[in-house]
């Protein structure tokens, strides 16, 4: 498996994570009544953390995939230079 394959795998994982983040965002409507303010804020906080870290991981994998593609391209260019 080459670097391009790894970058492709990471890119695909990143896309899945973005979709998962969107799904969490779509489901983030209020799940508790207004009188249960403490429970509501607790649920919201844990849901928001799950959403934020899922999206952040997706972003990081996307960036990592891009870094690997650049590195692979530079390997190719370096080889051609010899």
């Amino acid at each position: 498996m080459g670097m391009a394959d790894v970058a492709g795998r990471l890119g695909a994982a990143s896309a899945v994570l973005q979709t998962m983040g969107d799904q969490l965002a779509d489901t983030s409507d209020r799940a508790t009544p207004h009188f249960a303010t403490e429970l509501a804020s607790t649920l919201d906080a844990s849901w928001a953390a799950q959403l934020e870290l899922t999206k952040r991981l997706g972003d990081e994998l996307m960036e990592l995939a891009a870094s690997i593609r650049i590195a692979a391209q530079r390997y190719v260019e370096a080889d051609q230079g010899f």
Partner: protein
Amino acid sequence: MDALELLEPAASELLSRSDGVLARSGAPEGHEILRLLRLTGRLPADLVAEIVTWNPAALDARAEVLREQAERHRDIASELSKPVPWEGPAASAFGVRLNAAAKQSEELADSASSLAVHYTELASWVRVARRQLAQTLASVLSSAEAVTLCTVTMAPLERSAAAIRIGTIVLRDAERFHHACTEFAASWPQPIAAVMPTPLAMPSAIIRAEGLA
């Protein structure tokens, strides 16, 4: 439609009437209803209306989303744990980041699974609590106090006592909701923390520093 939704229209009418009397006549100093009103911050009719909108199916839906996501996070963690096909400092730096990403995905999977269990427990509790509240409302609707409240010829003092009695019974149920919500909040899993302390731009910087640029 559960029992609470079926009873809600009739209960709402009676409780609105009861709340009106309560607001006009008040309650004796030190009466239990005053403590319950302070605790809940709402009149019985408003409180019941809010509880009726608390749909356990929405909590089940969240649990289902989290269970699906836990599986996908585990798949991603497994994918990220595969060995990298090249060697050198850049590969090492990449491996560190990839391991951190795999760990984060596993943490997200565990967190999603744990949250799903709690959402399911909460949904089950809400169903039971709704049934209990429906029973309370049914008993209130068929009580002598309800008849007293709805009979305009009754003496104001009797109507006031009936309103206080009805309000107290309903708010006692609401107090159980309040305590249970507090307990659920206290036992709810803490929000997941990030396991990636450094920005991911690092590997590409190392790759460039390695002399490939």
